[in-house]
């Protein structure tokens, strides 16, 4: 081949995608941080950041720049290697998971088909779940390496919490897999398109259990025990300062974006427009799928903030009880019912 086109397609586009896969979560995180501070402020009858940039939109950027120029403290008794690895691990795993998160159907540019994901794999969903579970290692390393009591307790709480809530997540994901006959995220969305009903409406129990467990996985209120400020100071990242702390901070938000994306992909039709069956509303199809996707993600991110602004924090034993007594039995029964119905119908 002599034309330069293949070179562009084979090298530059993947490069662009790699940059995009880092930028996209980052942009979402920045929006999310801003959204959280503004929305929580509005819930509480305040204004929230509104001095930096238009309506305070530059606030997260100011925070990031400031944090970048902060002193980095590694305390004397810390395990330096693990202490340094932990934030990188957390950040890396949450960004890597985005490789397999599709943003929409492929776009045709001339003869070239541009896919809106970095990698499509038949086990994409497993990979994403696995990556998000790896970040708990970062939390353990961080909490243990700090050689301090509060971070250690925070890390332990985090491990137990994540481990327990993996179970209902796995069981509810299985119901989706059973219906879609695939663990490829793109195929799952296509199956919802073909079935004309989003799985969230077909299996509301799965969607709710997945969402609750997702909040617990991301250590957010009301399950924010690992960093419960009134008990554990700042939890596992108490001893972190500067950029490393920012890594934890950003990855927490990236994780939220990831969980919201998963909920949307698995249960709410990803980039599919709503009311696909209603002919009168067919103009909704004119809006690009990506926009629908973002709107849905934003809704779930807003839910995160809403919940945080409303609910108190669970106690540790209640948190475990909630999982063992409610979520796990519920998701088990739900799984059985879905499988039985699938077999019978």
């Amino acid at each position, binding site marked *: 081949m002599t034309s330069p086109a293949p070179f562009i397609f084979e090298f530059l586009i993947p490069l662009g995608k790699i940059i995009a896969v880092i930028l996209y979560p980052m942009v979402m995180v920045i929006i999310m941080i801003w959204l959280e501070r503004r929305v929580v402020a509005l819930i509480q009858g305040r204004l929230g950041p509104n001095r930096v940039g238009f309506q305070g939109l530059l606030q997260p950027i100011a925070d990031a720049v400031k944090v970048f120029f902060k002193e980095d403290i590694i305390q004397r008794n810390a395990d330096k290697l693990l202490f340094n690895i932990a934030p990188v691990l957390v950040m890396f795993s949450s960004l890597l998971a985005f490789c397999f998160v599709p943003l929409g159907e492929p776009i045709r540019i001339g003869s070239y088909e541009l896919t809106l994901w970095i990698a499509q794999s038949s086990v994409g969903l497993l990979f994403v779940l696995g990556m998000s579970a790896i970040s708990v290692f970062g939390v353990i390393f961080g909490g243990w390496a700090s050689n301090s009591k509060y971070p250690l307790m925070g890390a332990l709480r985090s491990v137990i919490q994540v481990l327990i809530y993996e179970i209902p997540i796995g069981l509810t994901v299985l119901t989706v897999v059973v219906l879609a006959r695939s663990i490829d995220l793109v195929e799952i969305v296509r199956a919802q398109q073909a079935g004309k009903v989003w799985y969230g409406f077909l299996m509301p129990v799965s969607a709710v259990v997945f969402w609750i467990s997702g909040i617990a996985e991301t250590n957010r209120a009301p399950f*924010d025990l690992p960093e419960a400020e*009134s008990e554990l100071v700042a939890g596992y990242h108490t001893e972190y300062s500067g950029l490393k702390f920012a890594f934890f901070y950003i990855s927490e938000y990236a994780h939220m974006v990831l969980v919201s994306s998963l909920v949307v992909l698995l249960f709410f039709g990803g980039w599919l427009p709503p009311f696909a069956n209603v002919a009168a509303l067919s103009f909704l199809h004119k809006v690009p799928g990506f926009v629908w996707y973002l709107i849905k993600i934003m809704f779930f991110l807003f839910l995160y903030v809403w919940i945080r*602004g409303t609910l108190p*924090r669970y*106690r540790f034993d209640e948190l475990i009880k909630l999982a063992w007594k409610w979520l796990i039995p519920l998701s088990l029964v739900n799984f059985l019912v879905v499988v039985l119905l699938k077999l019978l119908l």
Partner: protein
Amino acid sequence: MSFKDLELNMGPQHPSTHGVLRLKVTIDNEVIVRIEPVVGYLHRGMEKLWESLTYPQILPLTDRLDYIAAVSNNLAYVLAVEKLAGIEVPKRAQYIRVILSELMRISSHLAWVGFQANDIGAITVLLYGFEYREDFLDIFETYAGGRLTINGLRIGGVPFDLDGGLIGRIRKTLARLPKRLHEVEMLLNENRIWKHRTQGVGCLSAEEAIEHGLTGPCLRACGVPWDIRKDIPYSSYEDFEFDVPLSDQGDVYGRYLVRMQEIRQSVRIIEQALDRLPAGDHIAKVPKILRIPAGEVFHSIEAPKGELGFYIRSNGTDKPERVKMKSPSFINLQSLPSMCRGGIFSDVVSILGSLDIVLGEIDK
């Protein structure tokens, strides 16, 4: 590092110790084995300082004891001094004192519910509580010029009279209050997480509570109707009709319910006082240099936190020989270890919050 008998040091700088309290907590995994409060990080030597000041000079310093309800401290102090010096306070002044101290009680309880909710993780309630409290601080600002430590009373009466404008403002603020309390209660009362965190946590039976010397809402949450305003009325409290809210749970939830009801009773008292505000002077004639003949007196009142008393011993000069403050938080905090027995680490935060301690009056 072993997780059996892990010693945790909460404070003196910790987000939920309400100031500079230090708790030495020994935990076995998440269960509390031992807990020991360490106080004194805010010990300012008030009692020593008071011995070198004249009686009126002491008054503004009492504001800094329980700084969330400053007028209550003033009231206990001036009542003790007046009792010792035999000063007769005009009826109007007594009513204004009641109004001010009940307003303080409301603002203190509003701040409390905010802190308590924040400790349990409901940050929004903290901001609601503080927003509603601002209205009351506005009243104090209009009345005395300060927001928090307003030095709102004087020996012999009150420094300023209540005028019509301020009375209207108080009424307006009180009229707004029920809706706002309802808003807070909607967020908390039937909230499952809130109930899990507060019900059955930090229980104390009535006998235990009396044995520990507990006073105030914490005692009334155990079902003991001990309210000095009713039992040994002072400053014309006998003129007003009000109930003493009780709860028989003795847990954190009970303390929350009692305090929310107390706000409503305070509203009742203030409305009655405003309706029947007698005419007359607002301050008695008190000599510029107050010399009190030798003697001793103990007088206590029902402060938002409990029984707040002053023991004053005079020696015939214009300065007291000894002023001792009986602080409710000091006694209430002592019961923390018994309340936390067998609890979970997270409970410490919620129990400590429910005691409504103020380090200023514990450490003096």
